């Protein structure tokens, strides 16, 4: 499903260059639940951005479902994001002026168009049927993250990418979010990659990849 071949990412920092990823080679099969762990600055987020087609590698190959995406144009990458990838962020990234339902519908705008019924179904799946008309400020952190999951879920993505999804939540809400993600993985066979600091959360995953200074130190093969 995901096939990374010797991926590097170099950022220009003034006159010097900062090498964030130093030759990552990684295979992830369809339906896996994978945690990526590592200290700050190890390149976790950069790796996730590359996997999510928000950025392009400096060199190397990235095949997503057998398709080479590392050399696609910005417009084609956007299309891949819209159709295949569901993002879940640490800071939720909901639009504060929209209701939960409208936020979920936003997930469909660039993936074929709004379908109200499916938005409500997705909210029901994360247990928010009672709160569809609430705005993010009226929801708890855990509920906001559930709206974000519904937004990612609504377009039937093949890949879920979660960047520290529990980083801003208390441990109880964090457990809830993880159990929703694991049950989606179990019921719908969605491939889930999550970046986390929390070993407890990582322990729910089938595989843990450790990253340090832009290199994989453990969990390379499954």
């Amino acid at each position: 499903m995901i096939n990374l071949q010797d991926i590097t990412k170099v950022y220009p920092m003034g006159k010097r260059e900062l090498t964030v990823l130093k030759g990552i080679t990684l295979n992830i099969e369809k339906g896996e639940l994978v945690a990526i762990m590592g200290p700050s600055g190890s390149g976790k987020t950069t790796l996730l951005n590359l996997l999510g087609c928000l950025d392009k590698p400096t060199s190397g190959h990235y095949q997503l479902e057998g398709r080479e995406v590392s050399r696609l144009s910005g417009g084609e990458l956007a299309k891949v994001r819209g159709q295949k990838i569901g993002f879940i962020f640490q800071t939720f990234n909901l639009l504060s002026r929209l209701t939960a339902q409208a936020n979920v519908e936003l997930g469909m705008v660039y993936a074929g168009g709004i379908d109200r019924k499916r938005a409500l179904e997705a909210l029901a799946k994360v247990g928010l049927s009672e709160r569809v008309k609430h705005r993010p400020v009226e929801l708890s952190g855990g509920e906001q993250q559930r709206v974000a999951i519904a937004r990612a879920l609504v377009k039937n993505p093949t890949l879920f990418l979660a960047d520290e999804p529990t980083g801003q939540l208390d441990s109880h809400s964090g457990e809830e979010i993880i159990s929703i993600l694991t049950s989606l993985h179990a019921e719908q066979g969605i491939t889930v990659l999550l970046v986390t600091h929390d070993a407890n959360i990582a322990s729910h995953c089938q595989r843990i990849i450790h990253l340090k200074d832009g290199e994989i130190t453990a969990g390379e093969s499954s």
Partner: protein
Amino acid sequence: MKKLGSFLSTVWLGISTHKLRSFLTMLGIVIGVAAVIILMAIGKGTTAQILESIESMGSDLITIRPGASFGFGGVRGTGGSTQTLTIEDAEAIAEEVTYVSAVAPSYSSNLQLVVGSENTNSSVTGTTPEYVEVSNLEIASGAFFTEYDYQRGAKVTVLGANIKETLFGDTDAIGQQMRMGGNIVRVVGVLELQETMMGPDDSIFIPLTAMQQMVAQTRTAQGERVISSISLTVSDEAQADYVVEEVTSLLRSRHRLGSLDEDDFNITSMQEIAETISETASTLTLLLGAIAAISLLVGGIGVMNIMLVSVLERTREIGIRKALGAREHDIWIQFLIEAAILTLSGGVIGVIIGWLVAYFVNSMGIMTTVVTADVVILAVSVSVGIGLFFGFYPAWNASRLNPIEALRSE
């Protein structure tokens, strides 16, 4: 359809979730468009009013006055001070020039008018019965003096509506007598009130033959009777230029002017005056429109300013949209359409306000205003154009944002 619906709802969200800002953005366009509509309506209304009053006098009217035409260079005789036009000239024109339907010579003189205790000094015009046809006069009561009155020099008079009001008030003037320069004259007709510029509301008419008895008759060296102007109408307006040419050559030969001499009379046709006035008026209308267009431009710059701020403020939203699969042109179109919809609604509201103001100004009698479809269409399309033009740069800015950085911004 589904896609279009999603798209419109996206744009609507952008506008409706920032209501105050959207309203303020619109306001500049509303004021600009309303100003254009109102000023153009005033300009066009004034033009129409002037042309209407010319029309009421008869656009086929041609007037000949003595004296050279006014022009630049050299001192010329003042119109009216020279005495070159005669009744015989008028008769010759009536007989010899084709396409002339009526000719009315007239002679004006200041005479003392006395009615009861009212005593005024006023200009009196002696003319022929043809004057009614030539000047499109409308009779309110009584009748204009007849050919028979003219032939025998009857001491009868026809009064303009205002002068009748001054002399006789509300009482019926027909059959009343008044003193005019020492003579007793009888009122036989009163004219309809016309309220047009240069209209006959303040005029007093008597037969030219009666006038000749009241004031000392001036004669030219050839013994012809001097008059102060000749008015004539043409039967076919398309032949007005031809008639002016024919009259000119006829008068030149009658006045025995050499080929190097200048005309000792000047001819003005209403058609010519109407053309000059409408040209001047449309220039003025354009100028008014241009002034209003500046406020529209300022409104457009306001749109750009607010759209730029809006893009900055919504950086994270743009990042989220990109993460959800929005392409550059999706974002670009979103912001562009948002700007265009704002200015379009501003334009429509501006048209409605401008139209209402123009309507009330007109119906309250302050000014004549005319709102034409072309101005409305122009104003609305210009306001959409402004949205697209001034929204272009902010929208492009938005579309170029890097999604990763945009998502990190607060």
